[in-house]
């Protein structure tokens, strides 16, 4: 039997986690590692590896076919463009502390789409194949230009047989026209809710009356719409995080069960590397505590909530088809199925790329609506968009589940060839997958209950996470 290469990583309890390139994993002791590395596999080892489809006899036999299939399905294939992030205005009626780089004051001029730009955007959308489209309106505050949102939506509904719209709004000010826009069944709301009221005010609204307005509108929206229409995410200051219990209560009160915990993302080369390390360690610890708290809370209340990105990573471990989240998939080709169009009509590969370019250090724009997407520039970015043969990733047990973030590397280090273990992305994901496997092998009732809920199965049992003794 030929055994596929196994990658290994030590787990916190001293055992080793093994994984092959197709994402087949198991836990075993150091004894197995020694036997494997010294070509001394026992009969029991071989039987275990055979049953787990970690090896094969002949190319094209069933185990080979199964492995090749799973490996292939894990590759994220470039699809038709069907997701476009639009920034019709950079102007905003809030001044959130962590957003200074991407907004313009409400009364400023020159930060909205011109008529030409709107025309260019519609022309670009018109060139898409369809049949489906998802449009995400970002900003600034998109609702400051409902007229532009309406123009885009009307066009898309006409052209595409299936369209969906998401408005990323701060919910500060909603007039009748804004409510009317949001009322549509094909339109969804994404907002920011930074935990408890205090934190939200400190980080975003700064003023009691402004905070009141937000919560009033949020409450009104939740009362007006059914569950699933509104999603929200908290931005967390690592140095001053909110009370997580209160955050979860808050979200649950507003009918939102999925919480995508994100740290304040300080853009720019001003971040020093060691400062980055310290913040990374603190963030990882915070996130781990959040997951523990979440598992305990879910079990206590019987009402299940999730941390969105953790659930994504969990699915990426267990399944071979979990590549619908643009932040984590492998390869992560740019300008394939989604693209960003800025207030000035420029294309960007991601929203982070747009924000990075705005602070002026590097221009990651990839064309404009008048002249089209610059494929040569996209190709350059794409050269770093996968991890399969990276000299560090190739040895990593998490490689099949993980990905790359070219833009984040550029933003922090000015280059994309920093050894993986020294990057924020790697440090972040090592911790995340460590946590995923810790929970998968925890073997207690609360963990099992949350795993079942997050995976959409009725029950999880310990036998579903393989162990080789």
């Amino acid at each position: 039997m030929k055994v596929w290469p196994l990658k290994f990583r030590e787990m916190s309890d001293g055992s080793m986690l093994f994984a092959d390139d197709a994402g087949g994993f198991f836990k075993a002791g150091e004894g197995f590692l020694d036997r494997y590395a010294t070509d001394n596999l026992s009969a029991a080892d071989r039987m275990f590896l055979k049953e787990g489809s970690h090896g094969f006899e002949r190319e094209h036999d069933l185990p080979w076919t199964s492995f090749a299939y799973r490996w292939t399905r894990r590759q994220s294939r470039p699809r038709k463009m069907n997701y476009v992030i639009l920034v019709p205005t950079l102007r905003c009626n809030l001044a959130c502390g962590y957003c200074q780089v991407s907004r313009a004051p409400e009364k400023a001029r020159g930060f909205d789409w011109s008529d030409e730009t709107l025309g260019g955007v519609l022309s670009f959308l018109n060139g898409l194949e369809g049949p489906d489209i998802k449009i995400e309106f970002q900003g600034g505050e998109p609702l400051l230009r409902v007229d532009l949102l309406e123009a885009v939506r009307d066009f898309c509904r006409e052209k595409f047989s299936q369209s969906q719209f998401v408005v990323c709004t701060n919910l500060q000010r909603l007039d009748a026209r804004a409510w009317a826009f949001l009322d549509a069944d094909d339109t969804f709301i994404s907002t920011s809710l930074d935990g408890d009221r205090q934190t939200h005010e400190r980080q975003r609204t700064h003023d009691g009356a402004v905070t009141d307005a937000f919560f009033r509108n949020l409450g009104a929206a939740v009362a007006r719409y059914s569950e699933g229409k509104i999603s929200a995410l908290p931005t967390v200051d690592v140095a001053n995080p909110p009370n997580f219990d209160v955050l979860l209560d808050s979200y649950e009160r507003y009918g939102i069960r999925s919480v995508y915990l994100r740290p304040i993302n300080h853009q720019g080369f001003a971040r020093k590397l060691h400062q980055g390390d310290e913040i990374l360690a603190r963030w990882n610890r915070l996130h781990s505590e959040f997951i523990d708290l979440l598992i305990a809370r879910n079990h206590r209340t019987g009402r299940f909530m999730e941390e969105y990105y953790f659930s994504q990573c969990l699915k990426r471990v267990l399944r071979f088809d979990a590549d619908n989240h643009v932040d984590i998939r492998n390869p992560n080709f740019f300008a394939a199925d989604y693209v960003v169009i800025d207030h000035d009509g420029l294309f960007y590969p991601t929203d982070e790329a747009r924000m990075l370019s705005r602070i002026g250090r590097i221009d990651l724009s990839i064309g404009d609506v008048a002249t089209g997407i610059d494929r040569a520039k996209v190709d350059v970015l794409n050269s770093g968009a996968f991890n399969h043969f990276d000299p560090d990733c190739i040895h990593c047990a998490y490689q099949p589940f993980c990905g790359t973030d070219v833009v984040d590397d550029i933003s922090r280090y000015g280059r994309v060839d920093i050894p993986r273990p020294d990057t924020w992305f790697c440090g972040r994901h090592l911790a995340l997958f460590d946590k995923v496997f810790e929970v998968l092998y925890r073997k207690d009732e609360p963990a099992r209950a949350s795993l079942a809920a997050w995976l959409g199965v009725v029950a999880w049992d310990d036998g579903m996470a393989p162990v080789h003794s």
Partner: protein
Amino acid sequence: MAELFNISGFDFVVEIPPQFEEYVDSALLRLQVAHPVCRLSRSGKTITVQSSKGLSEVELRKAILHTIYREKIYAETLGMRQALVEAVTAR
């Protein structure tokens, strides 16, 4: 299989079993990147570790062993990986 004995303070020597010899050089390179404060050198069938600052003997021994393992696994299975990619991308 790998013997450790102190020469002076934290310094120690790791013996390389014959089947791993060809992978030691590339392993050492990776180890230097991962542990820049440690001084590692090879002489024939042994690796000498001088100044293993920041890491315990056990940790560094494991790191060395595991890195050598990884180099061996990588080299011996590269052909399998190439064959797989060829097979699934063939027209």
